[in-house]
């Protein structure tokens, strides 16, 4: 099975990074989250309800709908916050990318740890621009809002191709497919990583470090 990879690119001003990333990530996760599963006897299950809420951006003329789950929002904000700080303090010329990867766990026998097999990866490439005056900032607000509208349409188009999705799991397998740790919704298992391209052009990958850590942790 091949992993589906989608790439989105956007140029934003520094203070817009957080909101733009949250808008895109939340839109993807809206499509990739279900209600909580409740398994019953005879192999049946019922699904909880996913609520949605609108979020107005402060620095962009844009509103997006996200899943009503504070836990999920906090997790995304944490990841995006780290990405934003890394972009700001890395001394790079403001180019970086953040990746949202959906994966399935495949149990392996001891002593090997579980395998994580990605089935969909969304990569958002960000280019941070610096603007000179308020008028340019105002134009940027509108332009970035329009760009985000295009990105949402792109995301929706991919989602509705109805390509591979993991099979609905049995109760014993549900943790291999979904993140069941949240109390109100159940997104597919996902992980977020980012890369900052420094001014020399070489990339400093945080994912590599994490992978090594995970493998050593067993």
């Amino acid at each position, binding site marked *: 099975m091949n992993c589906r990879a989608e790439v989105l690119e956007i140029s934003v001003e520094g203070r817009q990074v957080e909101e733009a990333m949250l808008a895109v990530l939340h*839109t993807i996760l*809206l*499509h990739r989250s*279900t*209600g*909580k599963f*409740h398994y*019953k006897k*005879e*192999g*049946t*299950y*019922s*699904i*909880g*309800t*996913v*609520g*949605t*809420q*609108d*979020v*107005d951006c402060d620095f962009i*003329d844009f*509103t*997006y*709908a996200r*899943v*009503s*789950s504070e836990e999920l929002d906090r997790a995304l904000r944490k990841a995006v916050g780290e990405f934003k700080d890394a972009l700001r303090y890395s001394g790079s010329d403001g180019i970086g990318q953040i990746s949202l990867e959906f994966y399935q766990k495949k149990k392996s026998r001891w002593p090997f740890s579980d395998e994580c097999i990605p089935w969909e990866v969304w990569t958002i490439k960000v280019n941070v621009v610096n603007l000179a005056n308020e008028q340019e900032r105002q134009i940027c607000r509108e332009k970035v809002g329009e760009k*985000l*509208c295009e990105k*949402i*349409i792109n*995301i*929706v*188009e991919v*989602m*509705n191709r*109805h390509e591979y999705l993991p099979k*609905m*799991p*049995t*109760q014993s397998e549900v943790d291999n497919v979904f993140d069941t740790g949240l*109390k*109100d*919704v159940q997104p597919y298992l996902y992980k977020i990583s980012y890369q900052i391209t420094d001014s020399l052009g070489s990339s400093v990958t945080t994912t590599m470090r994490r992978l090594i850590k995970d493998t050593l942790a067993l």
Partner: protein
Amino acid sequence: MDTDLNSQDRKDLDKFIKFFALKTVQVIVQARLGEKICTRSSSSPTGSDWFNLAIKDIPEVTHEAKKALAGQLPAVGRSMCVEISLKTSEGDSMELEIWCLEMNEKCDKEIKVSYTVYNRLSLLLKSLLAITRVTPAYRLSRKQGHEYVILYRIYFGEVQLSGLGEGFQTVRVGTVGTPLGTITLSCAYRINLAFISTRQFERTPPIMGIIIDHFVDRPYPSSSPMHPCNYRTSGEENGAAYPSVEDSQEVCTTSFSTSPPSQLIVPGKEGGVPPVPSQPAHGTQADHERMVMCTPLDGALYSAATPSSSEDTETVSNSSEGKSGSPHNLLETIFVRKVGAFVNKPINQVTMASLDIPFAMFAPKNVELEDNDPMVNPPDSPDVESPLQGSLHSEGSSGSSTGNTHDDFVMVDFKPAFSKDDILPMDLGTFYREFQNPPQLSSLSIDIGAQSMAEDLDSLPEKLAVHEKNVKEFDAFVETLQ
């Protein structure tokens, strides 16, 4: 085609399509209400959350949708369309978007109805939630209020796109294949809105006489009435929950199976059609107050007027033609007196003694009845404008508010700012024209400038000498600044 689908699956599919259509309409209309939508996630499934999504049901919208569908389902050649349009306070209207739920002939026989189709319809609704925030009409709908409102209309049949103007764009929300055909949800939207959104809808007509050619008459009469997209029921200011859906909807499928056979479908009962609330008529400030007073008698009342400011703008009349509500009409005739702007006291307390009308000092003393005062009871002609406005537009007018010579109408001799009636008796328009092109400053005219330049150059050495003498004073001054 039907032989491949067993009766249970067929029944399920019809039910799914029906409720999908109803939920689609709810999502679209709610996204054009002008406010942010928020629903809660719930880990325990309830019987009324179709497609596992918390989408509230506005009863009126459900009623309209059911009325348009009239027991049918979207099929080939029969699409369900939701038209979103904008109506200004002047009464001009313009179509913004058409959302279409269509069915084509391309069938997917292999697909599992109760599972895959259901989940894909759920995904499609999520996509609709995302896309409705992204089309240009969303930002317009968030700013609706005094100058314009957003209306919706549901119709069933052939899609009519001609009202969208030239060069409209289409965005496809998504498709779901079913054994009976492929469901497609798309939106066609007007793109030349940039002019509308940046231009502030001024209450006064444009001075330069810009012709707005977007606002054209509808090419064909609407087959169904338009409805406003902003709903307020009494006591719902904080966006509290809408009436529960149990009485008006079937219970939806809530159980799924990891293996094909077992399915629990609770047979639902379809409740009665919810009572049709009456539509309000006009939206001036007094009317808004009036509607609030009417509410306890009327039951659920949907106000079309957003809470207006104290200025006497005319808000839009959004009523659908003569809906129910003869009781409501009766109530309307009782409270016929309009309260003008700037009037702070309740109606029955305004007496002649406490003349609280604006510009009272300018009004001639023979105004006996409040009814005759144009500020309190303005004439119904569409030419009503502020006096200021009137004189801007007319040549050499005397500054009266309109040219109306109605007997009850009192001419107010309005004295505009800057006018001195002892020296220059003029109206604002004349004043404006006269002082629009002031004469050139004499010091800036070239001949004199050339002469003074030469004089300046000659006197320069003397001036320098004087300044050099006063160097110490200048230095002391500079030090005080630091």
